[in-house]
């Protein structure tokens, strides 16, 4: 029996005494009623072990003025994230600059090589050279244009802002760079041995050699397009992405990609398709789980020194599972009624909200061109109009957001901005409310809500190896993780059947047989 502490203050005292039964946990409420004093009576709720205090939904409703303060609370996760950002930004930039300089050096080498091939004979042995006529000039023009096309193509394919920093090097790009380097080196070798050493006089042959180099570079660029861009377009694998905290699942079709590139594609889809992660919705199941285990305690009657510690723990957990299965648990009942009640409350608040917003929107109307010249008084721009009608719907909106546990996703400022945006674009109240009634994808919310731009790829296979049938990997961020499994799309065998349009004929089927 557990008796709570009794406060002796004031005239009337009311104490409720409850004993903690092994199976049920009741609330203990202590209230003091004082006559003639100004103190508020605050209900103090204390529960048994393991449950968090239930948050009364109407707490804080008595405030009359809603000021424009947004919640500036810095949780532990935020601190961790900020420090991580600071550490990683230095390392990542180094690598990015390194690859960028390598690429620029390679590019310069590639572009200057044909020009060098053409210019060097003129510098080194100008008198021995045969002058070549129109054929050479034609070849000069073709070299120039091909180099221009190569320049534009390389700029289009390679010089794009980097989308992400991947953990390992991009294998195909590295291989292509090595190929180009080997190629250019071999051309230089040949040039150096056969042409520079022997000081060849046939200038046309040299120009043709330079043209062949540029042609081959264009073909390597074609190879680069096929390997880097075209190969993964054809869908080959169907991946199933599940969020670990609430089970949201989506399926995507991907082509043949390495695991890290597939992870990048999945993350980009995640921001558009998955509803935003809301940790406030998960607290109910956690409290239920805590309640399940809270009521049982295992005593070891046989005394110490029996088996190994593992054996004891094993038998203890089995005993707990058996006891939990046997005791009559009414938590499903509570869950059912709680959910029904919550559903009803949400619907009621939603109805009030819709009515309030519709009414608020009727207070303003767009001013026409002719009226603008006539009455210059009391004219508002969208922002002021939004601020004017916002207070009439603010209370209903805030209550609704609090009931659906979305209040931390939307700040006052963002709501007013959205309202001004809707007013400017002639949107109806329903269009304005859509972003609050259903939780949208993460892109919809403000930048600082995109909490995780730092993702960790956890995989048993090497991340540069390709996706295969049955590959499983994890994408972890601060709050949750995405579990990804891939399956191969099966080979589809399609056959053809021709139906003559005139063959569609019908008869009445009226011949029934009844037994009597």
């Amino acid at each position, binding site marked *: 029996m557990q008796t709570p502490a009794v406060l002796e203050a004031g005239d009337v005292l009311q104490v409720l005494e409850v004993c903690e039964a092994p199976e049920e946990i009741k609330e203990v409420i202590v209230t003091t009623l004082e006559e003639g004093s100004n103190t508020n009576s605050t209900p103090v709720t204390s529960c048994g072990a393991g449950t968090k205090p239930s948050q009364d939904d109407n707490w804080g409703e008595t405030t009359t003025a809603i000021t424009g303060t947004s919640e500036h609370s810095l949780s532990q996760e935020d601190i961790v994230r900020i420090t991580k950002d600071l550490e990683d930004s230095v390392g990542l930039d180094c690598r990015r600059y390194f690859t960028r300089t390598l690429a620029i050096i390679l590019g310069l080498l590639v572009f200057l090589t044909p020009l060098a091939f053409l210019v060097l004979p003129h510098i080194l042995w100008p008198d021995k050279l045969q002058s070549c006529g129109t054929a050479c000039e034609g070849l000069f023009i073709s070299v120039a244009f091909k180099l221009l096309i190569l320049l534009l193509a390389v700029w289009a394919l390679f010089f794009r802002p980097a989308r992400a920093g991947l953990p390992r090097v991009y294998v195909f790009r590295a291989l292509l760079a090595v190929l180009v380097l080997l190629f250019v080196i071999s051309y230089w070798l040949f040039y150096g041995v056969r042409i520079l050493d022997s000081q060849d006089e046939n200038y046309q042959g040299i120009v043709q050699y330079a043209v062949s180099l540029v042609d081959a570079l264009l073909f390597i660029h074609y190879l680069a397009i096929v390997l880097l861009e075209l190969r993964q377009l054809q869908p080959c694998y169907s991946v199933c992405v599940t969020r670990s905290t609430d089970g949201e699942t989506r399926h995507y079709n991907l082509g043949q990609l390495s695991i890290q590139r597939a992870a990048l594609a999945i993350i980009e889809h995640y921001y558009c398709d998955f509803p935003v992660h809301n940790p406030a919705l998960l607290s109910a199941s956690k409290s239920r789980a805590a309640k399940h285990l809270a009521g049982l305690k295992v005593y070891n009657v046989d005394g110490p020194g029996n088996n190994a510690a593992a054996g004891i723990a094993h038998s203890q957990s089995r005993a707990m599972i058996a006891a939990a299965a046997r005791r009559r648990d009414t938590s499903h009942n509570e869950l059912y009624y709680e959910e029904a009640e919550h559903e009803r409350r949400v619907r009621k608040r939603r109805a009030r909200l819709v009515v309030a917003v519709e009414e608020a929107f009727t207070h303003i109307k767009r001013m026409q061109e002719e009226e603008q010249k006539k009455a210059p008084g009391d004219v508002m721009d969208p922002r002021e109009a939004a601020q004017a009608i916002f207070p009439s719907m603010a209370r209903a909106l805030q209550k609704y957001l609090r009931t659906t546990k979305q209040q931390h996703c939307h700040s006052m400022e963002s709501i007013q901005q959205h309202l001004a945006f809707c007013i400017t674009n002639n949107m109806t109240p329903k269009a304005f409310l859509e972003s609050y009634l259903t939780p949208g994808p993460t892109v919809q919310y403000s930048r600082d809500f995109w909490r995780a731009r730092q993702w960790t790829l956890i995989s048993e296979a090497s991340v540069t190896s390709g996706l295969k049938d049955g590959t499983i990997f994890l994408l972890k961020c601060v709050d949750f993780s995405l579990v990804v499994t891939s399956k191969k799309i099966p080979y589809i065998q399609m056959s053809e059947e021709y139906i003559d349009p005139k063959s569609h004929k019908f*008869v009445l089927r*009226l*011949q*029934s*047989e*009844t*037994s009597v």
Partner: protein
Amino acid sequence: MSFVPGQPVTAVVERVEIQKLRQGENLILGFSIGGGIDQDPGQNPFSEDKSDKGIYVTRISPKGPADLAGLKMGDKIMQVNGWDMTMVTHDQARKKLTKKREDVVRLLVTRKSLEEAVKHSKCSYPKH
């Protein structure tokens, strides 16, 4: 058995009296019927004239009341307990046969072999 519109139907009929058998709650006769003016007459396997929309016996349960009474498969039912069966819908025919208050149904049925038998008997007796 052919039906000429506007002319009375003439046929050689046989009287068949069937006692209904009680099976549980139901009184059954032990045969199945097909046909009716709302059905497709071309699908009737037993009719000679494929525009005949009469009620035909399509199946007989062996050892059932109809079998014992002498009803044969392919018979055309002309009357049931005095009610005409040549111009009825399928459902009306079923209802006339399955009245719960009647224990006995007296059918007038016709079949091709009856006509043959009458013709044969007419011919075999030369006129004196």
